[in-house]
């Protein structure tokens, strides 16, 4: 009774507030904001063609969105498409009655077709903005829409989610863009294991993930216990567009060969296994055993025990082979290899010819669900090869290399993506001994799949637009205790600075942060840590003094991250070729650093830096701020005196294990954790500057 009264009071109050102070006669034109055509106008004008979808829009109370200001991308199915959808969802005889859908399902159906650019600080997308893969902003049910451009298609004939064709594109309205499609898009609501099992092309893998129990490991969707903190850390300087991740979803990615490919596959290992193609999971196990036998015979520490017949044991050959095809992060193909910041990717960069030699690569690594293994991936999503697609033409389309079958990839579901491979991928002797026997430079976020799955990571320049605090316990490989007032971690999206991939992972205060990194193949490595020097002197630096431990061993005395690289303790010098070629602009890049005419390419300085356990940053990537701010077109991270590598020491690993790198503050301050490098010691003498 009371509650009724309350409601009445509130309503009365609100109605008085509005009506009592305005003359109702004045309302008239004051609602007219737009002078052009809105999406709603467009739909009304073509009501006969889209009446079914309009009906659903209205029924789901989404029509006002189409009338309001915004930057919507609307995929509107034709009436034919809607009727086909009703039939598909019917009982086989009669079509589904849309009026029987509950409000939640109606909204899901409608909102799957709408991307709200305005709310996401983004735009409405025409097909000219599309790139193969996902549209960068999620739709209104939080899913990415995957677009694919078939060969020989006309310019706007993109395929949406592999379900629909755009039949009329780029209807630009004042509140967004309309694309007419010939099929309803609804995404897949399976979990990844079920998607694999029901897809039809992956019967062997469907059976294999059941036999190995890997399917059971991929049944989660979201950590419901996660509650995003609402209050930012006290005293944080980062408050603009900053918040904690809103959710903590689980995600996996499957990189699979279809049955047809497996059935006809023959290589040295099928021969060794005595099989003709991989036609069953028994064949697959025999194939895997041949691979691992070869590795073990050659001294590999791959964690596979051929005596284990229990397929659910992760040391079992089949289990390991299959698990190698799964990443513990939901990764679309367009985010599989990050190219942001690499010098080869910018037309304005003047020194491409100089830097992009046979050793220059865009190369990254993904840990998999198979213990002790990594996948190497290079530009154009080329997987596990010593060849260099940045140097060697034609690799992107060559069937000699492993890559995705684009039209069969980016199959999304509730907890991951399914991509199809064109060749059989395995963690074998070649991968371990040759592909991975090189400088493994890994951004620290490599080991934080939760950030990838939950879209904490942003791959394009969002300078000052994207800050995400990372709560304690959010990432299983990031161990730290957020502590008031100032110990916290925050991720900055890709931006204009000279950081690998352009993004930043920062900790502040008296932090004690441990990253679990790897796995790294057994061997002897020099290990390095890439970081940023804040400020121009100890006295004005935001950074602190940090004791670094690798696997519990202190790496020398604490590193003073405040230290200006130009001071004698570090002794950074600008490469003279930059000065010689670009004059004052070259000097400017590194705060008037010294240089030596006798050392034009900085080799002498590289050596002396190494003596003090430092290295310059690589020359393979660039911060766009020099280009934007100073009009310079040639400086790379190597030319920035604020970006350094610190050599942690030489370590021998007897197994393909994960490792702990721990940063403990001796003096509170800010630390930027960029990347870690593992270089086999036998390669140091021949190492390039990339």
């Amino acid at each position: 009774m009371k509650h009724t009264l309350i409601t009445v009071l509130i309503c009365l109050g609100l109605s008085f507030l509005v009506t009592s102070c305005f003359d109702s006669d004045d309302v008239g034109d004051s609602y007219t904001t737009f002078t052009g055509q809105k999406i709603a106008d467009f739909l009304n004008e073509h009501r006969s063609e889209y009446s079914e979808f309009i009906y659903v829009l209205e029924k789901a109370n989404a029509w006002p969105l189409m009338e309001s200001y915004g930057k919507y991308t609307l995929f509107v199915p034709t009436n034919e498409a809607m009727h086909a959808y009703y039939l598909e969802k019917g009982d086989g005889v009669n079509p589904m009655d849309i009026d029987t859908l509950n409000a939640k399902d109606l909204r899901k159906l409608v909102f799957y077709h709408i991307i709200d650019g305005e709310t996401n600080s983004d735009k409405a997308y025409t097909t000219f903005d599309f790139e193969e893969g996902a549209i960068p902003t999620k739709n209104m049910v939080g899913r990415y829409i995957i677009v694919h451009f078939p060969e020989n298609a006309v310019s706007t004939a993109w395929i949406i989610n592999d379900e629909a064709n755009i039949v009329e594109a780029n209807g630009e309205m004042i509140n967004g863009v309309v694309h007419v499609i010939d099929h309803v898009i609804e995404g897949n609501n399976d979990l990844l294991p079920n998607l694999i099992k029901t897809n039809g092309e992956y019967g062997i893998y469907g059976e294999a993930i059941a036999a190995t129990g890997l399917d059971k490991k991929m049944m989660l969707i979201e950590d419901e216990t996660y509650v995003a903190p609402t209050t930012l850390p006290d005293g944080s300087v980062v408050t603009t567009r900053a918040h904690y991740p809103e959710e903590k979803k689980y995600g996996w990615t499957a990189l699979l060969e279809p049955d047809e490919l497996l059935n006809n596959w023959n290589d040295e290992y099928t021969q060794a296994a005595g099989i003709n193609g991989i036609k069953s999971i028994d064949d697959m196990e025999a194939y895997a055993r041949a691979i691992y036998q070869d590795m073990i015979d050659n001294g590999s520490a791959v964690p596979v025990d051929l005596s284990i017949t229990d397929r659910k044991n992760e040391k079992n050959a089949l289990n390991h082979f299959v698990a190698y095809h799964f990443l513990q992060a939901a990764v679309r193909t367009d985010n599989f290899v990050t190219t942001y910041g690499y010098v080869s990717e910018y037309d304005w960069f003047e020194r491409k010819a100089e830097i992009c030699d046979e050793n220059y690569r865009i190369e990254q690594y993904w840990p998999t669900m198979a213990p002790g293994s990594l996948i190497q991936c290079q530009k154009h999503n080329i997987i596990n090869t010593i060849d260099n697609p940045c140097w060697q033409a034609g690799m992107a389309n060559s069937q000699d290399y492993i890559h995705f079958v684009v039209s069969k990839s980016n199959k999304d579901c509730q907890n991951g993506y399914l991509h199809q491979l064109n060749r059989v991928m395995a963690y074998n002797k070649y991968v371990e001994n040759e592909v991975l026997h090189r400088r493994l430079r890994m951004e620290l976020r490599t080991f934080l799949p939760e950030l990838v799955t939950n879209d904490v990571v942003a791959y394009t320049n969002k300078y000052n637009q994207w800050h995400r605090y990372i709560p304690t316990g959010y990432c299983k490989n990031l161990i730290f205790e957020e502590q008031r007032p100032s110990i916290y971690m925050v991720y900055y999206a890709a931006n204009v600075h000279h950081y690998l991939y352009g993004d930043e992972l920062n900790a502040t205060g008296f932090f004690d942060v441990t990253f679990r990194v790897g796995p790294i193949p057994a061997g002897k490595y020099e290990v390095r840590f890439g970081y940023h020097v804040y400020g121009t002197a100890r006295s004005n630096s935001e950074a602190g003094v940090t004791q670094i431990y690798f696997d519990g061993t202190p790496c020398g005395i604490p590193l003073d991250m405040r230290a200006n690289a130009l001071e004698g303790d570090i002794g950074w010098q600008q490469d003279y070729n930059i000065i010689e070629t670009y004059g004052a602009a070259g000097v400017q890049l590194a705060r008037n650093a010294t240089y030596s005419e006798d050392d034009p390419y900085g080799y002498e300085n590289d050596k002396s830096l190494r003596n003090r356990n430092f290295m310059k940053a690589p020359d393979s990537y660039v911060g766009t701020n020099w280009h934007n701010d100073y009009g310079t077109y040639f400086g790379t991270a190597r030319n920035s005196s604020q970006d350094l590598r610190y050599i942690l020491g030489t370590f021998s690993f007897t197994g393909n294990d994960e490792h702990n790198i721990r940063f403990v503050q001796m003096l509170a301050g800010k630390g930027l954790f960029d990347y870690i490098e593992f270089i086999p010691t036998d390669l140091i003498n021949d190492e390039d500057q990339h």
Partner: protein
Amino acid sequence: MKIHRLYIVIGLGLTLFATSCTDRFEEEENNEPAWLGPNVYDYLEQRGDCRYFCQLIRDCGYYESMKRTGSNTLFFSPDSCFETFFRSADAVNKGYTSYDKLPQSMKYMMLRSCMVENAQLIERLSKTDHGGTLFRRTTMMELEDTIPVVTYADMPHNIYFDRYKDDEMKLLMDASPWTLVQFFPDVMSALKITDKDMKYICGDGASIDRTYLFQSRIVRQDITCKNGYLHELDRICMVPDNMAGYIRNENRLSTFNHLMDRFCEPVLYRTTVDGERIYELRYFNESVSHPHRTDIDGRIAPGMLYFDPGWNLYQYGSSGTNSNNAYEGDMAAMFVPTNEAMAEYFSADPNAEGHDIYESFGGSWDNVPDQIAADLLKNHQLSSFVNSTPSHFGTLKDMAGYDMEIKEDNIVGSYVARNGIVYLINKVLPPLDYRSVMGPVKVDQGLKIFNLAMGDNYCQFQYYLRSLKSTFNFFVTPDEYMKDYLDPISAGYSGVRMNSIYDFRLNTNTNTIEAVVRNAATGDSIGINTSGGISGALTSRLTDILNQQTLVGEIIPGQEWYITKGYAPIRLVWAGDKVVAAQGAGNASPIDVIDEYDKTNGATRYLNGILRTSPYSMYNILRQHAGASASGSVDDKFKAFYDMCEYCGLFEKNPTTTCAAIDYRLSFLSQYHYSVYIPGNDGVEAAIGDGIIPSISDIENCSLTSEEEAAGLDLEEKREMLRQRMIRFIRYHIQDYSIIIGGQNENEGQFLSSTLNTATNKFYPIYVDQDGSNVRILDNYNYQRRRQGLSFEKVDVSSELNNIMARDLIVNSAATTAATGIETYSYSVIHLLEDGKYLRFE
């Protein structure tokens, strides 16, 4: 239910606001919902068990407000709570045994401190206006509602209060607003406070489902009246002391308080129109948000806490966030050892952790120097209550970054103050810096110069040395031996300042380091250097000393030579497995070790002098052996090598326009330590004879072949090519890392020379043996021959001229006479190669 009530207020508010534009206000006015209670005052009166509180309202002049107007939030207590209070020891001590005996100031405090502006439910009280979590809030309490008048007996006893010995003083315990501390369910949930935490905070039985104001439970909340909300407490509504006040008044903490009293002083808050002075009590502290670093006389505080434990409006950060004022989301925490714990720590028992301090200062806390006392006290302060609750004890860090050694069973009591929580603990938490190699320096009052030099205002070495998992051998020099330091920078000065001697001393007034500068030859004083600060001239010298007196890593009994943190070579003198003396390359004789302490991260050894680096540059040493090429040389063993270096222009004076070498330096060396293998004159001759290098005269007198002419080469270009061959030969004789006879053993250790292999852009290696008596070198040419199964040879260094130490110093001015500090440097150890030998890279 709560939400609906919130809506009432919103709804009513909106209704009133909206209708004010209409003529229906009167109509609405008398239509109150029947379920709205009476006004605040009437409610309390009608209950019948709130007579004292009603009286309080009347006595403080809030009758009208509580009865008719305003929108109020009031925390109140029924009569039974007042009765309990009147019987309490605290009230009896103060004479507050009945309501009539409460002074007016006390009444104001009791009422206003529990009044909050606007009508707010507990749920709404848990949020800031911006939606953030609101843990602490200010009240309507006026700062000057109550101003204690204290006599000397009640004042902290220290030099600052001694001035008021004979007077009474109006002394605010702090001049910032008081805050309420709200342990409300939504707050506790947001701050991740657990049931276990509440047990320690509010006592057994407390839980996060209940609602507490400080440690008082709210037994009935959200009582709705026409003009506000009431929340009923289970005890009298009294805002507790701040942390400092509690520690001062708690008998069990008197030892800790006695030490804390040293670090406070009265600061004038304001002078009334009657000329009366009101002071506030401030603690010296180094916080960012509310620092107090100098005393009333302008001197640096005798010691500083991390923050002022008396600051009511405590906040650690310098500003709030977009959702909070900084004080609203958190408060401080102090872990205060009981008197028993302090006595157990500071004891004659040799096993007591504070025994060394006890011994050093005659067993009296009063003798413990201020700095040590401040270090000890502040180590018990933590900036955040939220992060120091018992559920965080496993990962808690102290404010120096060390793991905090506290467990739940160390907590013997707690007190929620208005600006923080005080945990009473049964152990002392000593600053862990004292367990490191810095410990003896911090305790020993004979090492004040070194102690200051390590600190923030000078060299900031503490941040290296506090790494407890590293190993250091730290050589320290007591104040009395911080003399006769040959200033390396002064080698570039002129006149009486050249090669001056520094006698360091402490300025006790400013607590800074000074140096009396003397002329080396006459011993006469030529000035006092007082230039401190992290970029000051004295700091440059002190850093140099610390760098050469700090060895990183283990030392091996019997091994003589080591490279220090600053790359300087130092020699240790052993007696069995004990280091009895140390010697820098510039010391004429070893400096005795006069005391030694084993600490968690290494050893601290006292030296009765300062280690000196070599006063000679490589240029200088080459010239000493350059025969006719240099005046004053003692022999000509390096003549050919020196001549080549000179001819090739390898010595430079000004590496940049802003710095200069003292005399000259080899241009390609940087801040590191090197070995220089000098081929004797016959060795150079052999290299020329073998066609490895041209002679100087060959270069000077060269001519072009017909092919060279045809290729367009001119004579100067040819000379330059030949000169480069010579330079590459010279550079190959200089390697990274000082190989010292008697230093670290090497067995074909691979090092890089200074000659670049232009095919690979890598530097040619050198392979070295060192066994304590000799250095033997396998050059790259012979290394490659060996790999190919060909004959090869290794080259020994001369037994006559070896282990010669040099230091090339670059100072921070283009004119060495104007330099104030060291810019960079390199150390070298120089060995003459055996007769007729040279090193070959290809």
